[in-house]
Every structure is written in C-alpha cells, then in structure tokens.
C-alpha cells in the first residue's frame, strides 16, 4: 500500500471513529435528554448551537463566493465553482447535524411545514436553509453532468444566491428580534451575520485549497493559484469589514450606560482579552488582518494558511462569545434559582456533537474530492 493510500485510510478511520463517537452521544441525547449538555434554563443555547451558526454561515459564505462565477459570470473563478458548491452543501449538512442534536424533539420537525409560523425568524431560517440545501444539491448535480449555462442552471444559481443573502439575515434576526436582550444589538446583528458568513466562507476557501494542494503534493494548479490571490483579497476585505463592525460594537459597549450592557460587559470576555478587546478578536481577527497586510507574508502560502486558519477558529469563538454572553444572566424569577452569572464549559456530549458535525462535513469533503471531480470547469 502506498504512503498516500495508507494516509487516506488512516484519515477515513479517524473520521469513522469521530462519527461513531458522535452517534453514541446522539443516541444518549435522544434517550436520556439534553441535561447531558452543560446548558440550563438560563443559558439554554450552548456549543452545538454556536457550531450550527458557524457552519451554516460558513456554508452561506461559500455559496456567495460560488455565485461570483455562477451568477455574476466571472469566468476566471469557474475552476472553483463546483468545489465551492460542494463544500457549501457538505458544510450545511454539518450545520444541520449540529442543530438536529440541539433540538429537544427533532422528530416534530415536520410541523415546520405542517404548521408554519411566518412571523418566526427561526421558521424562516429553517425554511431558507432547507431550500438552499435542496437548490445547492440540484445545482451541484447540474454542474456534475456538465450543465454550466442552461436556463435551469442559471435559475438554480440565482436561487441559491438569494437564499445565501437572506439566510444569514434570518440567523441574525433570531437574536436581533429578541427585544428583551438588547445586547444582541437588534437588527444590526443580521448585517454582522452576513459579514461573518463572507469572512468564514472566504477563510475556508483559502485554507481548503492550500491544504488540498499540500495533500496532493503537486501544489496549486495554475488556474486555482491565480484565483487564490483574489480570494486572499476578498478574505482581507471581509476581515476589514468585520473589524470595523467589531470596533464600533466594542466602542458602543464601552460607552453605554444601559444596565443590560453594563452587566453584559462585565461578563463578555469569556476567553479573556486585553482592555475591551476579546482574545478571539485579537488573535482571530486583528492578527490575521495584520498578517495579510504585510506583503511578504500575504503572498506566501504559509502566511495565508496561518491567517485563514486563525480566522476559522476565531469566527467560531466570536459566535460563541456573543451567544453565551447574552445569556449569562438569569431573567426575572430565574434569578431565584440560579446564580448571578452562569459559568459555562461544554460537556463531553456537546464536544461530541461538534465533533460529529465537523466529521460529517469532513467526510463529505473527502468523498467529494475522491469521487466527484470537483475541479471541473466548462470549456469555452
């Protein structure tokens, strides 16, 4: 057996173990209940929900990048299109795994269709992401059979683009429409989610291509190499946008005297920080931005890999920070049963849900690369 073949089977074995462990955890959750999470009636949404947000938004970012060639007709990016659509599907499947195991009764999900509530942002979020998954799957099938420019293909491309624009706005609304929790920043949260989607999607695209080239051993193909420069630019711009938003958010949080924010601010730095800047913002946003601003670093594969890798971890941490800090204090009478501030560290079951979601996405990536010719592009 050659070295690369044995590495492949070791990798598949690791994914198999991770998925098996995740399935055992899922069985325990279904039979025993969600008390196995370190969540409670104050901090009710924890790591699995953060992972869902992160993966769903990353999938959205990948779809938006795929729309550059598929909707806006930028031919230069066509060699990336099929792979991006596939990565978006796989990442979204991972997101669904995570939220599926977060729900108390996933078997009642058919009521989303039978008894829809059109005023619910959660309903819209679920509906749009379900539509997006189906549209992306059909779009991928069309690309796979070589249909790049048919009217049906165009409609599918436009539909997935529209869904990808609206879906993060809906995730943001889930938090932003909660009037009683002002620390989620109202409707602005939707804009934040859209920007974070573009950022984590661009980071994954950059990182994935570099890892793929390294695994393949032959480096990036010429067509992909040319695109990577542009991807690095989009990635840096997305970081810039999120930095501006984050700094404004930090400034408002620091200056306001609204009691909710004063309490929030006290507990917002779950991962620590320097002054009012959280650790994940410094290491997962500002540092990679600086790295990408230095020409001698941003032009190297190692520099790009480090920067995009930091952002991939940083964006998950940023989502978790926002998610947890807004729930860390009991509301109303719940203060009678719970301490002033809820300490949180994920339980083994929450880690296993995350492991399962990520492993499912990675398994799909691996199988896709092996069997689905993801670098296919149309001939002009």
């Amino acid at each position: 057996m050659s070295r690369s073949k044995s590495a492949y089977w070791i990798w598949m074995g690791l994914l198999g173990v991770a998925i098996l462990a995740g399935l055992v955890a899922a069985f325990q959750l279904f039979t025993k209940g969600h008390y196995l999470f370190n969540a409670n009636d104050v901090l009710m949404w924890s790591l699995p929900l953060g992972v869902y947000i992160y993966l769903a938004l990353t999938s959205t970012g990948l779809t938006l990048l795929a729309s550059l060639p598929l909707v806006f007709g930028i031919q230069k990016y066509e060699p990336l299109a099929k792979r991006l659509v596939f990565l978006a599907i796989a990442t979204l499947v991972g997101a669904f795994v995570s939220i599926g195991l977060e729900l108390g009764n996933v078997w009642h999900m058919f009521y989303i269709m039978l008894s829809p509530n059109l005023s619910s942002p959660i309903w819209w979020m679920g509906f749009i992401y379900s539509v997006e998954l189906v549209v992306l799957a059909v779009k991928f099938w069309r690309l796979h059979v070589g249909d790049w420019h048919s009217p049906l293909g165009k409609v599918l491309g436009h539909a997935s683009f529209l869904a990808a624009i609206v879906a993060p706005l809906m995730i943001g609304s889930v938090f932003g429409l909660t009037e009683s929790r002002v620390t989620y920043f109202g409707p602005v949260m939707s804009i934040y989610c859209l920007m974070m989607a573009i950022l984590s999607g661009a980071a994954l695209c950059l990182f994935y291509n570099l890892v793929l080239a390294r695994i393949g051993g032959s480096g990036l193909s010429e067509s992909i190499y040319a695109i990577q420069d542009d991807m690095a630019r989009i990635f840096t711009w997305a970081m810039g946008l999120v930095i501006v938003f984050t700094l404004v958010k930090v400034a408002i949080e620091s200056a306001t005297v609204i009691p909710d924010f004063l309490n929030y601010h006290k507990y917002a730095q779950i991962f620590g920080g320097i002054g009012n800047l959280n650790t994940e913002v410094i290491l997962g946003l500002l540092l990679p931005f600086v790295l990408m601003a230095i020409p001698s670093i941003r032009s190297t594969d190692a520099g790009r890999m480090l920067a995009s890798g930091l952002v991939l971890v940083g964006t998950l941490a940023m989502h978790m920070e926002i998610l947890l800090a807004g729930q860390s204090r009991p509301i109303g009478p719940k203060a009678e049963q719970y301490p002033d501030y809820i300490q949180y560290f994920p339980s083994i079951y929450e880690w296993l849900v995350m492991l399962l979601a990520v492993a499912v996405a990675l398994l799909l990536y691996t199988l896709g690369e092996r069997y689905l010719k993801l670098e296919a592009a149309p001939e002009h």
Partner: protein
Amino acid sequence: MPRYAMVIDLQRCVGCGSCSISCRSENNVPEGIYWSNKITETSGTFPNVRYHYIPTLCNHCDNAPCVRGCPTQAMHKLENGITMHDPDKCIGCKYCEFNCPYGVIYFNWRKPHPFWRQQDALIEGGTSSPAEEAKKAGGKVIPYYNPERAETLPGIRPKGVVEKCTFCDHRVKKGLLPRCVEACPADARIFGDISNPNSQVSKLLGKFRPFRLREQLGTDPHVFYIRDFNPAHYQPTKGGV
C-alpha cells in the same frame, strides 16, 4: 369572548408561596420547573433595608414574543387571551424561553419527575421504592398526579419540550378559577375578564394605579400588580443639608 387577566394585590400578598405549591400539584409540575414563581429583592443598606416580594407567572401577553417566535405555532394564543403551548408540535428549540422577557418558560431537560421513577428502595426490604409508591397511589409517575390536567395538555409533559403556566385553562374552561387564585389564603390574586367593565379585575384596575413587568417592551402583559405591602411609617420631615 372573554379576555382573561389577573390582578395581584401586593398589599394582600404575604409571600407564603401557596400559589406556587398549589400550582405545582394542580399541573404536575416537575422539580426545577416553576410555572408560578417569585422575584425577591432587597433594597437599602443595613440597617435601613426592605424586602420586596413579587409573585410571577406567565403574563399571557397580547403581543407575546414567545408566540411570535415559535416556528411551529406550538406556542399559540387562545381566543380568551391565554397563551397556550402544544407539546405535540414543540420541536424543543427553546426560542420561546430565549425570547420571553419574564423568565417564566422552562425546558424539560430530562424525563420529568426523575425521583418518582427510581426503582431502588432506600432500605432494601424495608421501604418501597419511589416508583412503587407512585404505583400504589395510582398516580401516573407521581403519587399526587392530577388527572384533570390532562384534559387540555399532556398531564406530564415529556422531555425535550418546554412548559409554562396556562392560567389553568382546564379549570377556566369549566368555570373554575385558576388553582393559584383559589389557593391564595390572602385573596391577593383576582382573576377575571378584563374586557368586561363590571368584572372585579376591571374595577380594581380602575381604582388603583397598576403596573406590569417590563411594560416598556410593548408585550402588553395581562398580569397586573396593584398596591404595595408596606406597613412602615415615618415622621413628617423635610430632610436637611
């Protein structure tokens, strides 16, 4: 159709907790979950301190954020204004709980009443197990199970769904007062039809200046508080510099 509301007279309320205990047995509420609860606050600095006690329950808001956000309409409004929950439609997303500004919705993280499900006796051969006790008493899971609760809602709600106060809709339907109102020894809870100007609740709301919790959010809660329990008095004074 009536629009039900509750007035809580804080001058009459003695903070005995009878509302919470009666609610618990009426609705088979599991440990760790509170349909009827309280907010306690201490104000001032020793020795000038006071203790405040505000009983709480679902506010059955007209603009209920829990209803607006529920993706499957499991949380819904009845025509009489009661905010009701259907566990059969609930997917356990907990958004209602997240969205409720009053902290009165709880999630069943595990199978309810775990104590009464235990099969092991405290003293082997000496005492019966909690599960045996419940069975002997003819209860469903708990020995004090109230079967009437099951008339409009599963008598005991399963794991993986939320639950909260229903204004005892199963009693109101039969022309009975909510259990907490009936059980209050101080008559501090007054229940009735707010759309009827001659109801007791309407008269009280016209007589006193009521307040509601977090009114500024625009949720239009239908639990009103009147008066305040304060036996303290002080000598007239203009203070000083």
